[in-house]
């Protein structure tokens, strides 16, 4: 037994000794590189995440799944803190998407709508990119490790290694990769190889630099993220705009092709797509139910207004007035309502007159209300008791006369009345009957009239639906609105103009203050460019190419199909003409009851020209007011440049003006100013040359009418021909045509150029010299075009410079901070 105990004690002692030895060996070998023979715990499940472009999709999918699972666990009350943190990020995105979706509904164009989402995306991207680019990568470069390295812990939670400086999982740095090897990191940090505890020094360095970088991240993100977002959006706007312009243009061109096919074939399927599905059935229902409720009943003026409003929903005021006029004729008040009220009113009117004159109760003593009522009742019975007591014009006249006779008879048969008074009373009685019958006159909506109106309603709704389809295409092509082809082209041309004029920031700053300063700058720049043939040609070529793009895009020339704008114009004409014809086709007892409306839509034919119509307004809007005024401004700019070039050529001894050097100097000086800056009003005042009509004539001749174009201009403009609405016209021909037309239109020597004025022996017709035509031809002046573009440029440059500076300062400061980070505490002494 004693032995047994002894042995047991010995064994225990040996065991303890063995453990002690192992522990001792373990600690003694802690700094040894070879620890393979030591007892080690099992490896944990945690690991460092190696992020790269290759692993990104996998990690993204994992993260998304994790967030979805977190949501499910959050709703069921099981989510842990880490999962709840993920749900916070999800909430941020949900909120951001809500904002972008709502703001999208408030934007008009696809580009603006897309920019709301792009803005939000840029914000999220900036939040992610800033710490990576401004902190993580520079820190890695300087300090040799990634302070934003992620790890997955035992519970599968992905976190940043250094987010909590007191719990950095250094045990996961197992040296599998260089980035996970503390020894390697220590090398990169420049820690002496002879340091006995390099890893500990490296860890402390990692901790310190991480705390510093995390702090700097918090301090800079607030400024950097919004600035990056805004700058990114600013830079993205242009490419996004181009992308959506292309997208919308393709869509609109497809639509125009369909319209063209429909016009040619009348295909039912296309009709459904382009017209029927777009019809406003709601207003149709409203009109028909209104008509139904009024059929066979008397209608008041208010009722006619309501019918007119329902019939003409969505049309302009003038057209609505025309429809109201037609309805007024159709629903004329030529019938009379006869009911109990008729007799009462007659008696009341008589009583008021007679009792006032002859004393109270006088009327009752002469006339018996019952007898009058009986008479009316008998009459209505004899005429088959018409519905709602409505009598035709003839019958109501019959009744009126018979009532007059009845009252006259009652007066005459009353012996108590003096003969002279009988006459007065009879007259008063007739007056009372007439007044009441006049007051009871009414219009009645017949079945036939209701049918006309309903049919017209259907025609108008069809017209509106097709018009809407055509307008949606026309709008994108030409309208004065953001992101239209015409608007974008104007932007491109003015941008090219600024670029070609080579305007410095200083000049931009000065010129943006006033149009006058812009004109001076523009003149100076253009004179310089015009001096050199090559630079002049480059200027004209680049600008005119951009201008020509408008024609190409409007007509979709590249497709090889029929010019798109021709289809639009034809369709507008067809829709209006067909509608007018359909309205005129509604006929029955009344001939062409919608004559005024149809004429308002398609126009009154005066000498073969349909004028004053909706059709004409729509055509002129597109051709003259929109495309025309833009093209006129372009032509004016090119013509102005040509004049500058011709002036230079003249100075160099080529070409010619009047031959009188002094006069030519004045002509050139004034001509430049005229072309550069003159508005309609300046033409009206003849540029203050009233007392010198021969100079004015010379000026107009040399600036507009001479037909001269510099060879440099002609060659720079090229010989490619395509002009929207006019087909095969070269740019040079167009410039020349514009100059001639404007000269003829504006260059009169008389003061008056209002419609129908006489010049010489000729009466100038209305169409050619209206104020609007004059306005369109003079168009936007070159200096005004540049001035507006410069202001825009200045604003956007100012904004961009300001925030680029702020962004650069923050970025530079952040980058330089790395050099100050990680400095060792001088009180720390290390052992070697």
């Amino acid at each position, binding site marked *: 037994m004693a032995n047994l105990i002894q042995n047991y004690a010995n064994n225990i002692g040996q065991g303890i000794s063995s453990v002690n030895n192992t522990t001792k060996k373990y600690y003694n070998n802690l700094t040894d590189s070879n620890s393979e023979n030591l007892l080690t715990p099992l490896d944990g499940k945690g690991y460092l995440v190696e992020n790269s472009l290759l692993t990104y999709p996998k990690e993204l999918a994992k993260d998304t799944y994790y967030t979805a699972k977190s949501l499910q*666990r959050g*709703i069921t009350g099981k989510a842990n803190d880490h999962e709840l943190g993920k749900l916070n990020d999800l909430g941020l995105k949900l909120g951001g998407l809500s904002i972008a979706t*709502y703001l999208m509904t408030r934007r008009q164009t696809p580009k603006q709508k897309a920019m709301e989402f792009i803005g939000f995306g840029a914000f999220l991207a900036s939040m992610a990119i800033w710490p990576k680019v401004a902190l993580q990568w520079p820190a890695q470069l300087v300090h040799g490790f990634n302070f934003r390295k992620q790890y997955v812990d035992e519970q599968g939670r992905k976190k940043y290694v250094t987010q909590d400086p007191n719990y950095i999982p250094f045990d996961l740095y197992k040296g599998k990769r260089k980035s996970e090897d503390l020894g390697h990191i220590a090398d990169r940090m420049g820690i002496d190889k002879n340091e006995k505890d390099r890893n*500990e020094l490296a860890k402390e360095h990692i901790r310190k630099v991480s705390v510093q970088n995390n702090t700097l991240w*918090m301090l800079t993100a607030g400024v950097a993220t919004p600035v990056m977002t805004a700058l990114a959006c600013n830079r993205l706007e242009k490419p996004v705009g181009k992308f959506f312009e292309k997208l919308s243009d393709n869509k609109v061109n497809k639509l125009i092709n369909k319209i063209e096919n429909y016009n040619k074939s009348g295909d039912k399927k296309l009709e459904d797509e382009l017209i029927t599905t777009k019809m406003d059935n709601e207003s149709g229902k409203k009109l028909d139910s209104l008509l139904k409720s009024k059929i066979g009943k008397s209608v008041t003026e208010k009722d006619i207004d309501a019918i007119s409003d329902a019939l003409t929903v969505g049309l302009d005021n003038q057209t609505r007035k025309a429809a109201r006029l037609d309805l007024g004729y159709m629903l004329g008040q030529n019938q009379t309502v006869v009911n109990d009220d008729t007799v009462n009113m007659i008696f009341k009117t008589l009583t008021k007159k007679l009792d006032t004159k002859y004393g109270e109760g006088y009327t009752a003593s002469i006339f018996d209300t019952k007898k009058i009522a009986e008479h009316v009742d008998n009459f209505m019975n004899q005429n088959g008791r018409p519905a709602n007591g409505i009598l035709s014009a003839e019958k109501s006249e019959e009744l009126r006369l018979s009532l007059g006779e009845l009252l006259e008879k009652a007066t005459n048969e009353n012996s108590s009345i003096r003969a002279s008074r009988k006459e007065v009373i009879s007259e008063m009685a007739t007056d009372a009957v007439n007044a009441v019958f006049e007051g009871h006159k009414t219009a009645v909506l017949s079945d036939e009239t209701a049918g006309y109106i309903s049919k017209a309603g259907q025609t108008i709704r069809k017209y509106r639906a097709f018009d809407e389809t055509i307008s949606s295409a026309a709008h994108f092509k030409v309208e004065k609105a953001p992101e239209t082809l015409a608007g974008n082209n104007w932007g491109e041309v003015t941008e090219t103009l600024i670029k070609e004029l080579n305007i410095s920031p200083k000049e931009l700053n000065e010129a943006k203050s006033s149009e006058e300063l812009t004109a001076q700058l523009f003149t100076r720049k253009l004179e310089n460019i015009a001096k050199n043939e090559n630079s002049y040609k480059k200027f004209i070529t680049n600008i005119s190419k951009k201008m020509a793009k408008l024609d190409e895009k409007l007509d979709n020339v590249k497709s090889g199909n029929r010019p798109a704008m021709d289809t639009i114009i034809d369709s507008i004409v067809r829709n209006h003409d067909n509608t007018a014809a359909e309205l005129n086709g509604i006929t029955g007892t009344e001939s062409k009851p919608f004559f005024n409306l149809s004429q308002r839509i398609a126009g009154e034919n005066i000498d073969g020209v349909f004028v004053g119509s909706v059709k004409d307004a729509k055509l002129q809007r597109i051709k003259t007011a929109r495309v025309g005024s833009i093209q006129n401004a372009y032509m004016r700019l090119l013509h102005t440049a040509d004049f500058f070039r011709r002036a230079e050529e003249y100075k160099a001894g080529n070409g010619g003006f009047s031959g009188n050097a002094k006069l030519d100097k004045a002509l050139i000086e004034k001509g430049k100013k005229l072309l550069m800056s003159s508005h309609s009003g300046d033409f009206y005042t003849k540029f203050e040359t009233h007392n010198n009509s021969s100079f004015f004539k010379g000026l107009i001749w040399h600036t507009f009418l001479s037909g001269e174009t510099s060879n440099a201009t002609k060659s720079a403009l090229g010989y490619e021909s395509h002009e929207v609405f006019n087909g095969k016209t070269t740019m040079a021909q167009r410039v020349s045509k514009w100059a001639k037309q404007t000269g003829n239109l504006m260059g009169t020597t008389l003061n008056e150029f209002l419609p129908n004025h006489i010049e010489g022996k000729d009466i100038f017709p209305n169409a050619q010299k209206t104020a609007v035509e004059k306005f369109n031809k003079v168009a936007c002046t070159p200096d005004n075009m540049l001035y507006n573009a410069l202001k825009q440029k200045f604003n956007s440059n100012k904004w961009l410079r300001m925030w680029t500076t702020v962004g650069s300062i923050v970025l530079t400061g952040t980058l330089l901070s790395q050099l100050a980070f990680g400095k060792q505490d001088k009180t720390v002494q290390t052992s070697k």
Partner: protein
Amino acid sequence: MGIDTSNANTTIALTPKSAPCPPYPHVHIPPEHIPEETRILPNNPRTQAMRTFQKVTSAFTEYPVKGLKGDKKSTFYEFLTMGSVPYILGSATFMALFNAAPSWFPNFNKKGARVGGNKLALGVLLYGVAKSISKNFVTKPVKWATGIDTEMPYEKVSYTIPNSKDDTPVPMFEQHKVFESRDFPRYDKLYGLKEDKPRNYYYDKIAKKNGLGINLEASDAEVKPLIKDVISRSSTAKSLSTYVWGGVGVMLAAQNSWDKFFRALSKKSWKRFTPNPNENKIINIVDRGINTGKNLWRITKSFGRNFVSASKELYKGPATEKGFNKHAGKFALGFAAALSILGAANTIYGAKTAGDRKMVIDSDKKVTVD
């Protein structure tokens, strides 16, 4: 604070100059007595204001200084608290982005740019306000229905380890919430909440309110899983709904009604005060004050009026639009409200049905030791 630092060593540096290496000897002797000053605070506006003030001022001053130095005592709490810096600076930067440049724009461009900028700046403000207020749409109903105030604040006080013998320990204050962590709620702070009540008073109350029963042997053990459930569900509801409410704030600011408010806010609308030369200085100062007050009241009224009309505008949508474009405001409001209501309802449901779920611990046995 009664902390004895006489035993503290002279340095806590990585390797003390005189110390052998490695391993490091544990040179610090912790203070003998650290008073427990961590305490639950009443959840009221005063506390909230105090906490916000302390967190924000620390986030802009003390913590960045420590952090930029790479201080050994920098903590995760400080890092998290500094999260308010990008939030505040970001809001200010967004406002500046929309408003700073127009001052240099040509005259005719200034006005348009400013109106747009003002609206966007207001959007940033209303985002913050709506996000902050909307938290209550979840937390208040949850508190009324379950008795658990998920926002219950507490202040944690700790003392730094002295750097040297002569160092005075500095108390560090951290503003937390008892239920901010689902993994580690501060259950310990809920024992003995009221001196004259039983130690489990709070747990008894929550158990009773949520139908777990009364006079339970171990109400704390019963209630703790329920609390975790409430934290998880309410936090989910808050995360999802408050950002959408913040979005509603931005949408509200995008309405045209605010144009009138911006006019009321403009310099031109400010009724200037002209001192009366016949009155003495004090009366003029008082009158100036009254004038300022009147102007501020006018602006406040304008804000209120336009807030109401902007809300109506958001709800009704533009008269010219149809379908989703017209009703987008309604949808957004409905979506935000639905998230809050459903989130709160889900939390309350979770608490009320907690008793039905299988319990690991037998509720009839006492498992805690006082």
